[in-house]
Every structure is written in C-alpha cells, then in structure tokens.
C-alpha cells in the first residue's frame, strides 16, 4: 500500500513539477531581455490546450507515428522513477539501475526519431539525422560521467552513486554534465527551442507533424527529461548525504532552481553554435567527464 502511495506521490512530483522548468527558463530570458515574458505556468496552459485538441495524422504514417511519442513519454517517466530524489531515494533501486536509466533515455530518443521518420518529410529526416549524430557524442559524455561516479562510490546503483562527498572532480563533472544537459534538452547553444526556422532545428523539427495529445506528450516528456538531467546534475555534484532529510530536499530544490536559472542565463547571453562546431563542444563535455573519471580513479587512491 505504501509502495503504491509512494509511486503515486513520486509520479505527481515528477509529472506536475516538470513543466515548471521551461517556464522559469523563459522568465529568466525575458527578464534579461527587458521583456515581461510569458507566464511561468505557460507550458501547463499549452498542455491543457493540446490535450483538448484533435490529432491530424498523415495518411502515409503508420501507427508508429502516434506510438513513438507515447512510448518515449513512458520511457522518460520510467527513467524518472529510477532517479533518486535526495533522502527519499527511488522507487526501485537495484545494482545496475543506472544502465537501465541510460537505456530508457536512448529508447525515448529512438522512439522520437522513429516517429519523425514516419511522415517521410525532408525536414523531419534532417532533424532525426542531427539528433542521432549529436546523441552519439552526448551519450559518451554521460557514460564517462556515470563511470566517474561509479568509480568514486564503487557502486552501479543510482542511490549510492549520487550521494558522494564533494570530490575534486565535482567541478569537472558539473561542467561536463551541464553541457550535456544543454545538448540533450535542445537548449542554446546547441539548439534554439524558440526558433521558428525549420532548417536550423534539431529536436523541434522532428516533432513538427505531431499535433494534439501526442504533441502534448512530446512537450511534457521533454520537460520531464529536462528535470531529470537537472536533478542528476545537482545530485552528482552536491554532497547531500551529510545533510538532514529536510535540508537535503531543500538543497536539491535550490540546486534545481539554480541550474534552471543558469540554463536561462546561458540562453540569454550566448548565440547558437553553427552545427559544425557542435561536436567540438560535446567533445569538450566528454573530456570534462573523462577527467572527472581520472580524478575519481587516481585521486581517490590516496
């Protein structure tokens, strides 16, 4: 019984809080630009609106076109269930759950790409190609980050891995994971979530043909993924294990807020990268994570 209650509560926290993040980012961007900006709750309104709308389906598309966003959303929510929330831990925790997390994220990406290819549109094929080629580099960086945490804690279970002491590699890890967060969630300087120019998009161009509830699933799934990466980053860097449970939760919330505002500031002050330079930055992120791994491995031996 308590397990069911626990799951419901966690789902509520993850699913209900996630759309807040894009709202905060947009508010920060508006504030830097001297504009009033959209309401912080705008994504909630958008999701409610999309949920009530009908779906326009291409006659060429197979059922995979709708199944893609649905499976991706479930995969992302599942990944969220594996992610521990400070002292509250996670629903299921087992040895190697971090690998499942990585695979769930990959599954979500695969499904989005699959749905994008369904319509046969030149735009969406282009977006899918970009998404997949940059993912190759971003995933290497994540795996390096996970390895460094694993080496440092000697565990492959997320709950143990994410409560390290503030090691020397934390700064490196923070830089690497923040860059990966920006890339994975299609933020500036990798992608521009606000642009209307199909030819320059990565993620947005893949979901151009979705409408109504499937689009709502895509948008909501993207916000869950953003929250997931933010929580991962904060917990990988902050030594929360030593705080009281309440203090740890507060530190986590504050950390998530700081990272979100940081994303907003990065978007406000940086221009986008040309696509040919994206691999350079992603490789840099990988190197950050790799050095964090080296520090964890060699530095911890003393």
């Amino acid at each position, binding site marked *: 019984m308590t397990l069911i209650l626990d799951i419901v509560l966690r789902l509520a926290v993850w699913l209900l809080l996630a759309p807040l993040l894009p709202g905060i980012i947009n508010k920060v961007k508006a504030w830097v*630009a*001297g504009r009033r900006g959209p309401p912080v709750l705008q994504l909630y309104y958008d999701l409610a609106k999309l949920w009530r709308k009908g779906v326009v389906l291409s006659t060429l598309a197979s059922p995979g076109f709708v199944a893609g966003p649905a499976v991706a959303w479930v995969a992302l929510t599942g990944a969220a269930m594996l992610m521990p929330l400070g002292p509250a831990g996670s629903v299921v925790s087992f040895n190697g759950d971090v690998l499942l997390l990585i695979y769930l994220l990959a599954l979500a990406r695969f499904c989005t790409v699959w749905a994008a290819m369904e319509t046969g549109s030149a735009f969406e094929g282009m977006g899918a190609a970009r998404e997949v080629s940059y993912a190759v580099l971003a995933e290497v960086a994540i795996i390096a980050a996970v390895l460094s945490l694993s080496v440092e804690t000697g565990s492959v279970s997320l709950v143990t891995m994410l409560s390290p002491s503030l090691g020397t590699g934390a700064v490196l890890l923070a830089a690497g994971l923040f860059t990966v967060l920006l890339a994975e969630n299609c933020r500036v300087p990798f992608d*521009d979530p606000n642009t209307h*120019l199909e*030819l*320059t998009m990565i993620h947005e161009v893949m979901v151009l043909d979705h409408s109504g509830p499937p689009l709502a699933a895509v948008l909501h799934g993207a916000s869950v993924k953003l929250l997931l990466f933010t929580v991962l980053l904060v917990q990988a860097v902050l030594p929360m294990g030593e705080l009281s449970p309440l203090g740890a939760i507060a530190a986590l919330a504050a950390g998530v807020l700081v990272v979100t505002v940081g994303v907003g500031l990065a*978007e406000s002050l*940086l221009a986008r990268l*040309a696509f*040919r330079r994206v691999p350079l930055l992603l490789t840099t992120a990988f190197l950050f994570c790799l050095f964090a791994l080296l520090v964890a491995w060699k530095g911890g031996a003393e």
Partner: protein
Amino acid sequence: MSASTPFALLANATSLPWADVPAWPVGEFVRTTANELTRGARLCAWFGVPEDTATRIVAVLAFDVDNTLAVARSTPFTGAYPSLTTTHTQAHLFEREVWEQHGLIPEGHPWLKPVRKNNGNAPANGEFFRVDGREVHEVAVGPIHAGVIEPGHFRFQCAGEEVLHLEIALGYQYRGGEEALIGGPHRATMSQVETVAGDTTIAHATAYATIMESLAGVDDRSSTEAPLRSQWMRAIALELERLANHIGDMGALAGDVAFLPAMSACGKIRGDFLNLTALICGNRFGRGLVRPGGCHLDLDGERAAQLLERLNTALAETEQAVGWFWDAASVRARFENVGLVSPAQATEIGMVGPAARGCGLVRDVRYDHPAGWHRFAQVPVAVWPGGDIFARAKVRSLEIQRSGEYLRAQLATPVDGNLHSELAAPVPDTFAVALVEGWRGEVCHVALTDSAGRFRRYKIIDPSFHNWTGLTLAMRGAAISDFPICNKSFNLSYCGFDL
C-alpha cells in the same frame, strides 16, 4: 569611356524623347548591349515595349564610374533573338521576364522558365534544377513559412547538410502592379507605387515622383523640379526608412542565432525609428508623404526639434545594442565566412545595395547617380570586403552610423521654401528613368508616355530582382542550417520582386 557609346546618354531623374533613343535590329542591339556590359556598364533594366503585334526590347544601362545612364532599344520584332544571358549572366532574370510577358524567346538561355506566372499553377509546381546521386536529397521549403513572412518557395539540393544548389520560385505575391500602371497616372497610381514593397515606400514613391517631375514639361523638354524643401524632406524620410529597416535586420540576424540581447533591443529600436517617420507623416511606413511635385506634409520647427531629440536617443540606444552584437564572439563566429559571394560573382549577376557593398563593390545610387537632395548633401558609401554574412551585417551597421550622422546634419540646417509645386501634364512620347537608393539597394523606375502623355509602359525594378540570385549563390556549399541567417542577411522583398 561612355563618351563613345552608341547608346543615348541621360542622367538619373531626367527624360528624353522616345524618338531620340537609338534603335537597332535585335541582333545588333543584343551585341551592342553585350559590348557595353563588357566595358563595365551594369544592366539596370531590360524590358519589352509592345508595338502593334511586335515588341521592342529596351535596355537601360548604368555607367557607375561616369555617373551616367544609357538607353537603347531594338526595332520591333516577334519570335526569337540571341540571348544576352549567354555572355552576361546579369540579364538572365530579365530575359525570362521578357519571355514571360511578351513571348520573345532568348535563344540559348540556359534556364528559361517563368519568373512569376506559372501557367496558372503554383510556382512550386514548376520544373526545378535537380542534382542526381544516391546521397543527394531534396528539401522543399515554403511557400508557407513558419514565421509571419511573405510566401516564396525554396528548393534545395543537398548532400547531407551541405547545399549543392538552391533554386527560388517566386510569384505568389504577383498583383499585376505594372499592368495596372499602364494608361496612368490614375487616381490609385500613387498608392499602388507606395505599396510595391511596403517596407520601401519612400524609395518607390520618390522614384515615381521623380519620374513624374522629369516628364512634366510646360511646352518643351523643360522638366519641373520639386521644391528644394521637399527634396530635403524626401532625403530625410529615405534615411529614416533605411535606419528602421537596417536595425530591424540586425535584430533579426541576432534572433536567428538565438542571441537575445541584441534581438530584443533592435526590435524595439526599429519601432522607435518607424515612429519618427510617423512623426513626419502620421504613419509608420511613410505613406502619403511623397507626392509628384513635392511632399504632401510639412515638418514644422517644433516637430523637427522633437525629431532630432528622439533621433539622438534612438541612435545612442542603437550604438549600444549593435555593440553587444559585435562584441559577442559567439555571434561573430556564426557570421564569418558563411554565405560567401565573391566580388566577381556579385559583379557578374549585377547585385546592388548593401549586399553588393558587402562584397566590396562601391555601388550606391546616392553616390553614383545623385538626384534630388543627394546632389547637395552626400552620404559616404559604406563598403566592407568579404562577401559573407558578417560583411553584409557590417555594411548595415556602418550605414546606420552614417545615415544617423546625415540626418543630424540635415535636421540642423533645414531648407526653407515651398513644399509643393504644381506639375504640368506629362510630355507625350517621352522616356524617363529614375533611380533611388532604397535601403535594399537600387530602386529603378522607367516610364514611357504615349502620344496623349499617359503611361504606355511603366517598369519597376526592385533591388530584390537583382539580388535573389545572390542569395542562391551564397548558399552554394553552405550548410542548410545556415540558410535562415543567410536569407536574413539579404532580407529581400517577395512582393517587390513579384510586383
């Protein structure tokens, strides 16, 4: 150099009797035109004039170095003629247009297809240049775009992210503008000319007013000039139009690379400059200000002082916003060496305006063919070598500074006198040319009156007509994801092209 030309010479904003325009059989006409183009002339206009069942072709050339224009015509003919495009690429769109409008076939034209009308079908349904190969894929963009912009169709041939070829199909905005002017001037003519390209109202209206003034003769050839005060007003309005659009473009370029500070600021400042135009004439796009014979609305001393004060504020804000733009390395990295057009290409296809000046070409109607107030007060020509997006943006930001300085100087020394003088009816059987440097480049109007003094032919060439080809060249070998910034750096008009 131009002294020995067989063409008839005339200065910008003047007219000459139709009978004085030399006429040759079309073969010789094409050959002579080709010779002049080889000697450094530039093709401003190339269009047909129907004569009974046949058609004459008229060529207007510009000798920029000699500050003079030259005109010649062919004798009436039907059917085919040897294409000028085979030797001079800058004629390629003109010849397609003449073929579309009059059915004269340029023999040897490499890519003869309609310019605007496509046999009742949408332009996107026409035939496109295709690149073959297993790796090559085609991307079709438009005519409906994601932003609130004009319709146009872009067909890319890509190998991965690299663009091998871009072909642009326009004509969705075709309104029959030139046809509507024939038999004019009508009551609606002024409004029609002002809306040829809504963002270039002052330039097109000034060109039309200049045509009417150069055609108005009391008895002989003596054209009537607009009062100096109105010429001064037109120059001010023209620079305000340039400032508003250039700043809007800088903001749009920043927006396309997701650089928010400059985007937001420039968008707001563009509005400030539009409001300055509204201060003069009551609306933000300069409608109703320029009229044949002068200006319709005056700028009294109090409003002139207010204009100067608000101008200074807006210019200071501009300097700051454009400063952020140039200071951000992440912005410069996106613009340098992207969307390259070489000076040779720009010359070959006859590019004009900031796009041409961004290739290092010194080409500015205000300097090369001064008319109106620009005969007395010049603006330095802003040129930047490079031919990339950076250079086109740099030319804009230089022009913002220079137009700002020009406006300050002009507002400090207002011209007294009448604002409007009555024009006599246009002289019959006369040919007139007016060039104005709009913010996109050379706006060219050509008029020919019939025996009753009405328009027999009225030709409008918006700078976009010359420059769309430049955009396709800039995209060759570029990444398809750079198309939007490349397109913004040209920012060409769809309706000005489609007419």
